[in-house]
Protein backbone atom coordinates (compact mmCIF):
# COMPACT_ATOMS: atom_id res chain seq x y z
CA UNK A 1 0.00 0.00 0.00
CA UNK A 2 2.86 2.33 0.81
CA UNK A 3 4.39 1.97 -2.63
CA UNK A 4 1.07 2.76 -4.29
CA UNK A 5 0.63 5.70 -1.99
CA UNK A 6 4.06 7.07 -2.77
CA UNK A 7 3.76 6.48 -6.49
CA UNK A 8 0.35 8.02 -6.90
CA UNK A 9 1.18 10.89 -4.60
CA UNK A 10 4.39 11.58 -6.51
CA UNK A 11 2.43 11.53 -9.74
CA UNK A 12 -0.10 13.90 -8.30
CA UNK A 13 2.52 16.33 -7.07
CA UNK A 14 4.45 16.16 -10.31
CA UNK A 15 1.30 17.00 -12.20
CA UNK A 16 0.58 19.80 -9.81
CA UNK A 17 3.94 21.35 -10.54
CA UNK A 18 3.37 21.24 -14.27
CA UNK A 19 3.13 24.75 -15.75
CA UNK A 20 0.54 23.74 -18.32
CA UNK A 21 -2.55 24.80 -16.38
CA UNK A 22 -5.99 24.38 -17.91
CA UNK A 23 -8.57 25.74 -18.63
CA UNK A 24 -11.61 27.77 -17.54
CA UNK A 25 -12.70 30.35 -20.09
CA UNK A 26 -13.07 34.03 -19.23
CA UNK A 27 -14.01 37.20 -21.04
CA UNK A 28 -14.21 40.96 -20.55
CA UNK A 29 -15.37 43.89 -22.64
CA UNK A 30 -14.86 47.63 -22.75
CA UNK A 31 -15.66 50.64 -24.89
CA UNK A 32 -13.08 52.13 -27.21
CA UNK A 33 -13.52 54.54 -30.07
CA UNK A 34 -17.26 54.09 -30.17
CA UNK A 35 -16.99 50.32 -30.44
CA UNK A 36 -17.58 47.51 -27.94
CA UNK A 37 -14.35 45.56 -27.80
CA UNK A 38 -13.21 42.67 -25.70
CA UNK A 39 -11.26 39.46 -25.40
CA UNK A 40 -11.99 35.85 -24.65
CA UNK A 41 -9.25 33.78 -23.09
CA UNK A 42 -8.49 30.58 -21.24
CA UNK A 43 -7.36 31.06 -17.65
CA UNK A 44 -3.60 30.78 -17.42
CA UNK A 45 -3.04 31.78 -21.05
CA UNK A 46 -4.35 30.69 -24.41
CA UNK A 47 -6.74 32.60 -26.66
CA UNK A 48 -10.27 31.57 -27.57
CA UNK A 49 -10.13 31.63 -31.38
CA UNK A 50 -13.26 31.88 -33.51
CA UNK A 51 -15.50 31.63 -30.49
CA UNK A 52 -19.06 32.88 -30.75
CA UNK A 53 -19.74 36.08 -28.81
CA UNK A 54 -23.27 37.24 -27.99
CA UNK A 55 -24.36 40.47 -26.35
CA UNK A 56 -27.61 40.27 -24.35
CA UNK A 57 -29.49 43.18 -22.83
CA UNK A 58 -30.72 43.45 -19.24
CA UNK A 59 -33.69 41.16 -20.00
CA UNK A 60 -31.56 38.56 -21.75
CA UNK A 61 -32.70 39.43 -25.28
CA UNK A 62 -30.00 39.07 -27.93
CA UNK A 63 -28.62 42.35 -29.22
CA UNK A 64 -25.74 41.43 -31.51
CA UNK A 65 -23.48 38.50 -32.24
CA UNK A 66 -19.95 38.18 -33.54
CA UNK A 67 -16.88 35.93 -33.43
CA UNK A 68 -13.46 36.31 -31.88
CA UNK A 69 -10.47 36.59 -34.19
CA UNK A 70 -7.20 34.63 -34.09
CA UNK A 71 -6.10 36.57 -31.02
CA UNK A 72 -9.29 35.93 -29.14
CA UNK A 73 -10.35 39.58 -29.49
CA UNK A 74 -13.61 40.91 -30.83
CA UNK A 75 -14.92 44.34 -31.80
CA UNK A 76 -18.39 45.41 -32.82
CA UNK A 77 -20.35 48.59 -33.30
CA UNK A 78 -21.66 49.74 -29.94
CA UNK A 79 -24.98 47.97 -29.38
CA UNK A 80 -27.98 49.83 -28.07
CA UNK A 81 -30.13 48.28 -25.45
CA UNK A 82 -30.99 48.41 -21.79
CA UNK A 83 -27.90 48.19 -19.56
CA UNK A 84 -26.43 46.15 -17.91
CA UNK A 85 -25.54 43.99 -20.88
CA UNK A 86 -24.15 40.47 -20.70
CA UNK A 87 -21.37 39.47 -23.07
CA UNK A 88 -21.51 35.68 -23.48
CA UNK A 89 -18.63 33.78 -25.01
CA UNK A 90 -19.19 30.22 -26.21
CA UNK A 91 -15.88 28.40 -26.31
CA UNK A 92 -17.28 25.10 -27.56
CA UNK A 93 -17.47 21.77 -25.71
CA UNK A 94 -19.92 23.23 -23.25
CA UNK A 95 -17.61 26.00 -22.06
CA UNK A 96 -19.15 29.40 -21.57
CA UNK A 97 -18.12 32.66 -19.94
CA UNK A 98 -20.22 35.70 -19.05
CA UNK A 99 -19.13 39.29 -18.54
CA UNK A 100 -21.48 41.98 -17.28
CA UNK A 101 -21.09 45.34 -19.06
CA UNK A 102 -22.27 48.20 -16.86
CA UNK A 103 -22.47 51.89 -17.50
CA UNK A 104 -19.12 52.28 -15.74
CA UNK A 105 -17.45 49.95 -18.26
CA UNK A 106 -18.69 52.14 -21.06
CA UNK A 107 -17.38 55.28 -19.40
CA UNK A 108 -20.85 56.68 -18.90
CA UNK A 109 -21.92 58.55 -15.79
CA UNK A 110 -23.93 56.33 -13.42
CA UNK A 111 -27.39 57.55 -14.48
CA UNK A 112 -30.39 55.22 -14.87
CA UNK A 113 -30.90 53.75 -18.34
CA UNK A 114 -32.67 56.08 -20.70
CA UNK A 115 -30.51 59.08 -19.95
CA UNK A 116 -27.37 57.38 -21.31
CA UNK A 117 -26.49 58.71 -24.76
CA UNK A 118 -23.74 57.37 -27.05
CA UNK A 119 -20.80 56.39 -24.80
CA UNK A 120 -17.78 58.67 -24.37
CA UNK A 121 -14.72 58.34 -22.16
CA UNK A 122 -15.06 60.06 -18.78
CA UNK A 123 -14.26 63.78 -18.96
CA UNK A 124 -12.67 65.76 -16.10
CA UNK A 125 -14.90 66.33 -13.06
CA UNK A 126 -16.95 69.53 -13.23
CA UNK A 127 -16.51 70.60 -16.88
CA UNK A 128 -16.18 74.37 -17.32
CA UNK A 129 -19.00 76.12 -19.22
CA UNK A 130 -18.37 75.71 -22.94
CA UNK A 131 -18.02 78.86 -25.08
CA UNK A 132 -20.25 77.42 -27.87
CA UNK A 133 -21.76 74.06 -28.85
CA UNK A 134 -19.51 73.44 -31.93
CA UNK A 135 -16.28 74.26 -30.08
CA UNK A 136 -17.29 72.07 -27.13
CA UNK A 137 -17.96 69.11 -29.43
CA UNK A 138 -14.54 69.49 -31.10
CA UNK A 139 -12.79 69.74 -27.74
CA UNK A 140 -14.57 66.64 -26.48
CA UNK A 141 -13.68 64.62 -29.59
CA UNK A 142 -10.02 65.53 -29.30
CA UNK A 143 -10.04 64.91 -25.60
CA UNK A 144 -11.68 61.56 -26.17
CA UNK A 145 -8.94 60.52 -28.58
CA UNK A 146 -6.25 61.64 -26.19
CA UNK A 147 -7.82 59.68 -23.35
CA UNK A 148 -8.10 56.56 -25.52
CA UNK A 149 -4.40 56.77 -26.21
CA UNK A 150 -3.41 57.39 -22.61
CA UNK A 151 -5.67 54.71 -21.21
CA UNK A 152 -4.66 51.98 -23.68
CA UNK A 153 -1.64 50.77 -21.65
CA UNK A 154 -3.72 50.80 -18.48
CA UNK A 155 -6.39 48.74 -20.19
CA UNK A 156 -3.73 46.32 -21.37
CA UNK A 157 -2.56 45.92 -17.78
CA UNK A 158 -6.10 45.28 -16.61
CA UNK A 159 -6.45 42.67 -19.32
CA UNK A 160 -3.37 40.89 -18.05
CA UNK A 161 -4.62 41.07 -14.49
CA UNK A 162 -7.97 39.58 -15.50
CA UNK A 163 -6.22 36.70 -17.23
CA UNK A 164 -3.95 36.06 -14.28
CA UNK A 165 -6.85 36.13 -11.86
CA UNK A 166 -8.38 33.03 -13.39
CA UNK A 167 -5.15 31.11 -13.06
CA UNK A 168 -5.03 28.10 -10.80
CA UNK A 169 -2.59 28.58 -7.95
CA UNK A 170 -0.78 25.98 -5.87
CA UNK A 171 -2.73 27.31 -2.89
CA UNK A 172 -5.99 26.21 -4.53
CA UNK A 173 -4.59 22.79 -5.36
CA UNK A 174 -3.30 22.21 -1.85
CA UNK A 175 -6.62 23.37 -0.45
CA UNK A 176 -8.49 20.91 -2.63
CA UNK A 177 -6.20 18.03 -1.67
CA UNK A 178 -6.70 18.88 1.98
CA UNK A 179 -10.46 18.76 1.55
CA UNK A 180 -10.27 15.38 -0.16
CA UNK A 181 -8.24 13.94 2.71
CA UNK A 182 -10.67 15.43 5.19
CA UNK A 183 -13.74 14.02 3.42
CA UNK A 184 -12.21 10.56 3.24
CA UNK A 185 -11.38 10.87 6.93
CA UNK A 186 -15.03 11.54 7.69
CA UNK A 187 -16.00 8.58 5.55
CA UNK A 188 -13.51 6.42 7.45
CA UNK A 189 -15.07 7.46 10.74
CA UNK A 190 -18.53 6.68 9.41
CA UNK A 191 -17.51 3.26 8.19
CA UNK A 192 -15.56 2.38 11.31
CA UNK A 193 -18.25 3.22 13.86
CA UNK A 194 -20.85 0.44 13.38
CA UNK A 195 -18.18 -2.25 13.43
CA UNK A 196 -17.41 -1.78 17.11
CA UNK A 197 -14.43 -3.94 18.09
CA UNK A 198 -14.66 -6.13 15.00
CA UNK A 199 -12.01 -4.25 13.04
Amino acid sequence: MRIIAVTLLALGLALAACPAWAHGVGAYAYAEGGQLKGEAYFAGGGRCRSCRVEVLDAQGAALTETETDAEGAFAMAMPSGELPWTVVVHAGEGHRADYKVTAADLGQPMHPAGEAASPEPKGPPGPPPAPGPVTAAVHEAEFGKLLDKKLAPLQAQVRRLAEAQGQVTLRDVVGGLGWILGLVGVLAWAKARPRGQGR
Partner: protein
Amino acid sequence: MHISEGVLTAPVLGAGAALTAVGVAVGLKKIDYDQLPRVALLAAVFFVASLVRVPLGPANVHLYLGGLVGLLLGWGAFPAMLAALALQAVLFQFGGLVVLGVNTFNMAMPALLCFWLFGRLARGGGRGLAIAAGFGAGALATLLAAGFTALALYLSGGEFIQAAQALVIAHLPVAAVEGALVALAVGFLRQVRPGVLGTTA
Protein backbone atom coordinates in the same frame (compact mmCIF):
# COMPACT_ATOMS: atom_id res chain seq x y z
CA MET B 1 -15.09 17.96 -20.80
CA HIS B 2 -16.22 20.10 -17.87
CA ILE B 3 -19.50 21.69 -18.92
CA SER B 4 -19.93 25.23 -17.61
CA GLU B 5 -22.91 26.66 -15.76
CA GLY B 6 -25.81 27.94 -17.79
CA VAL B 7 -25.27 25.68 -20.81
CA LEU B 8 -27.58 22.74 -20.15
CA THR B 9 -31.35 22.68 -19.80
CA ALA B 10 -33.18 21.80 -16.59
CA PRO B 11 -34.28 18.27 -17.59
CA VAL B 12 -30.72 17.30 -18.49
CA LEU B 13 -29.40 18.77 -15.25
CA GLY B 14 -32.04 16.92 -13.25
CA ALA B 15 -31.40 13.60 -14.97
CA GLY B 16 -27.66 13.92 -14.46
CA ALA B 17 -28.12 14.77 -10.79
CA ALA B 18 -30.44 11.81 -10.25
CA LEU B 19 -28.12 9.33 -11.97
CA THR B 20 -25.13 10.65 -10.08
CA ALA B 21 -27.00 10.42 -6.78
CA VAL B 22 -27.69 6.74 -7.45
CA GLY B 23 -24.07 6.12 -8.45
CA VAL B 24 -22.69 7.89 -5.39
CA ALA B 25 -25.04 6.03 -3.04
CA VAL B 26 -24.01 2.66 -4.46
CA GLY B 27 -20.36 3.70 -4.48
CA LEU B 28 -20.37 4.82 -0.86
CA LYS B 29 -21.92 1.55 0.22
CA LYS B 30 -19.50 -0.54 -1.76
CA ILE B 31 -16.30 1.18 -0.64
CA ASP B 32 -14.62 -1.04 1.89
CA TYR B 33 -12.98 0.48 4.94
CA ASP B 34 -9.60 -0.84 3.84
CA GLN B 35 -9.95 0.80 0.45
CA LEU B 36 -10.32 4.31 1.79
CA PRO B 37 -6.67 5.38 1.37
CA ARG B 38 -6.91 4.27 -2.25
CA VAL B 39 -10.08 6.30 -2.70
CA ALA B 40 -8.40 9.36 -1.26
CA LEU B 41 -5.34 9.00 -3.50
CA LEU B 42 -7.30 8.47 -6.68
CA ALA B 43 -9.64 11.34 -5.92
CA ALA B 44 -6.58 13.52 -5.36
CA VAL B 45 -4.91 12.40 -8.58
CA PHE B 46 -8.11 12.90 -10.56
CA PHE B 47 -8.50 16.35 -9.00
CA VAL B 48 -5.02 17.39 -10.10
CA ALA B 49 -5.15 15.67 -13.49
CA SER B 50 -7.75 18.05 -14.91
CA LEU B 51 -5.25 20.88 -14.47
CA VAL B 52 -2.74 19.32 -16.83
CA ARG B 53 -3.30 20.58 -20.35
CA VAL B 54 -2.37 18.13 -23.12
CA PRO B 55 -0.70 20.25 -25.79
CA LEU B 56 -1.11 17.71 -28.60
CA GLY B 57 -3.62 18.79 -31.18
CA PRO B 58 -5.24 22.20 -31.62
CA ALA B 59 -8.02 22.01 -29.03
CA ASN B 60 -7.73 22.91 -25.36
CA VAL B 61 -8.02 19.53 -23.62
CA HIS B 62 -6.83 18.22 -20.28
CA LEU B 63 -5.98 14.89 -18.68
CA TYR B 64 -8.88 12.89 -17.31
CA LEU B 65 -7.58 9.55 -15.88
CA GLY B 66 -11.08 8.06 -15.63
CA GLY B 67 -9.77 4.71 -16.81
CA LEU B 68 -7.32 4.51 -13.91
CA VAL B 69 -9.91 5.62 -11.36
CA GLY B 70 -12.42 3.11 -12.69
CA LEU B 71 -10.05 0.15 -12.72
CA LEU B 72 -8.94 0.79 -9.17
CA LEU B 73 -12.23 1.89 -7.59
CA GLY B 74 -15.14 0.51 -9.59
CA TRP B 75 -18.35 2.02 -8.19
CA GLY B 76 -16.17 4.09 -5.87
CA ALA B 77 -15.36 6.27 -8.87
CA PHE B 78 -18.69 8.06 -8.37
CA PRO B 79 -18.11 9.49 -4.88
CA ALA B 80 -14.41 10.09 -5.59
CA MET B 81 -15.10 12.08 -8.75
CA LEU B 82 -18.05 13.89 -7.19
CA ALA B 83 -15.80 15.21 -4.41
CA ALA B 84 -13.02 16.16 -6.82
CA LEU B 85 -15.36 17.89 -9.28
CA ALA B 86 -17.18 19.75 -6.51
CA LEU B 87 -13.85 21.07 -5.24
CA GLN B 88 -12.80 22.04 -8.75
CA ALA B 89 -16.04 23.95 -9.17
CA VAL B 90 -15.66 25.78 -5.87
CA LEU B 91 -11.92 26.47 -5.97
CA PHE B 92 -11.18 26.90 -9.67
CA GLN B 93 -14.59 27.57 -11.19
CA PHE B 94 -14.11 24.58 -13.53
CA GLY B 95 -17.58 23.31 -14.35
CA GLY B 96 -20.07 24.39 -11.71
CA LEU B 97 -22.24 23.26 -8.83
CA VAL B 98 -25.58 23.24 -10.65
CA VAL B 99 -24.04 21.21 -13.47
CA LEU B 100 -22.10 19.00 -11.01
CA GLY B 101 -24.47 16.06 -11.38
CA VAL B 102 -24.11 15.93 -15.15
CA ASN B 103 -20.35 16.43 -15.09
CA THR B 104 -19.90 13.71 -12.48
CA PHE B 105 -22.01 11.25 -14.43
CA ASN B 106 -20.19 12.07 -17.68
CA MET B 107 -16.86 11.27 -16.06
CA ALA B 108 -17.74 8.51 -13.57
CA MET B 109 -19.97 6.35 -15.78
CA PRO B 110 -17.18 5.72 -18.35
CA ALA B 111 -14.89 4.82 -15.45
CA LEU B 112 -17.42 2.29 -14.16
CA LEU B 113 -18.03 0.89 -17.65
CA CYS B 114 -14.32 0.35 -18.17
CA PHE B 115 -14.14 -1.32 -14.76
CA TRP B 116 -16.80 -3.77 -15.90
CA LEU B 117 -15.22 -4.33 -19.31
CA PHE B 118 -11.54 -4.49 -18.41
CA GLY B 119 -11.39 -5.05 -14.65
CA ARG B 120 -11.27 -8.80 -14.73
CA LEU B 121 -8.63 -8.85 -17.46
CA ALA B 122 -6.47 -6.37 -15.62
CA ARG B 123 -6.71 -8.38 -12.41
CA GLY B 124 -6.36 -11.91 -13.75
CA GLY B 125 -5.16 -12.81 -17.23
CA GLY B 126 -1.63 -12.89 -18.56
CA ARG B 127 0.65 -9.90 -18.11
CA GLY B 128 0.48 -8.81 -21.75
CA LEU B 129 -3.29 -9.10 -21.78
CA ALA B 130 -3.56 -7.11 -18.57
CA ILE B 131 -1.45 -4.28 -19.96
CA ALA B 132 -3.54 -4.26 -23.12
CA ALA B 133 -6.65 -4.12 -20.97
CA GLY B 134 -5.15 -1.16 -19.14
CA PHE B 135 -4.59 0.65 -22.42
CA GLY B 136 -8.12 -0.15 -23.51
CA ALA B 137 -9.57 1.12 -20.25
CA GLY B 138 -7.61 4.37 -20.37
CA ALA B 139 -8.39 5.17 -23.98
CA LEU B 140 -12.02 4.04 -24.00
CA ALA B 141 -12.89 5.89 -20.79
CA THR B 142 -11.62 9.14 -22.30
CA LEU B 143 -13.56 8.72 -25.52
CA LEU B 144 -16.72 7.69 -23.68
CA ALA B 145 -16.47 10.71 -21.41
CA ALA B 146 -16.19 12.94 -24.49
CA GLY B 147 -19.17 11.14 -25.99
CA PHE B 148 -21.30 11.53 -22.86
CA THR B 149 -20.44 15.23 -22.76
CA ALA B 150 -21.53 15.59 -26.37
CA LEU B 151 -24.75 13.73 -25.57
CA ALA B 152 -25.51 16.10 -22.69
CA LEU B 153 -24.95 19.08 -24.99
CA TYR B 154 -27.13 17.54 -27.67
CA LEU B 155 -29.97 16.85 -25.27
CA SER B 156 -29.86 20.51 -24.35
CA GLY B 157 -30.34 21.57 -27.95
CA GLY B 158 -26.89 21.53 -29.51
CA GLU B 159 -26.04 19.67 -32.69
CA PHE B 160 -25.04 16.21 -31.59
CA ILE B 161 -23.09 14.88 -34.54
CA GLN B 162 -20.91 17.96 -34.88
CA ALA B 163 -20.37 18.30 -31.13
CA ALA B 164 -19.62 14.59 -30.77
CA GLN B 165 -17.17 14.62 -33.66
CA ALA B 166 -15.38 17.71 -32.44
CA LEU B 167 -15.12 16.43 -28.88
CA VAL B 168 -14.01 12.92 -29.74
CA ILE B 169 -11.47 14.08 -32.31
CA ALA B 170 -10.08 16.64 -29.86
CA HIS B 171 -9.70 13.94 -27.24
CA LEU B 172 -8.03 11.32 -29.45
CA PRO B 173 -4.50 12.42 -28.49
CA VAL B 174 -5.52 12.50 -24.81
CA ALA B 175 -7.03 9.03 -25.15
CA ALA B 176 -3.76 7.68 -26.49
CA VAL B 177 -1.77 9.32 -23.70
CA GLU B 178 -4.18 8.03 -21.07
CA GLY B 179 -4.16 4.56 -22.52
CA ALA B 180 -0.37 4.51 -22.23
CA LEU B 181 -0.48 5.88 -18.67
CA VAL B 182 -3.02 3.32 -17.46
CA ALA B 183 -1.20 0.49 -19.23
CA LEU B 184 1.98 1.49 -17.41
CA ALA B 185 0.12 1.72 -14.11
CA VAL B 186 -1.46 -1.71 -14.59
CA GLY B 187 1.88 -3.28 -15.43
CA PHE B 188 3.47 -1.74 -12.38
CA LEU B 189 0.64 -2.58 -9.99
CA ARG B 190 0.43 -6.18 -11.10
CA GLN B 191 4.03 -6.66 -10.09
CA VAL B 192 3.87 -4.75 -6.87
CA ARG B 193 0.34 -5.09 -5.53
CA PRO B 194 -1.99 -7.18 -7.71
CA GLY B 195 -4.84 -7.11 -5.23
CA VAL B 196 -5.42 -3.43 -5.89
CA LEU B 197 -6.69 -3.84 -9.47
CA GLY B 198 -10.33 -4.57 -10.12
CA THR B 199 -11.84 -4.48 -6.67
CA THR B 200 -14.74 -6.76 -5.91
CA ALA B 201 -17.08 -3.75 -5.81
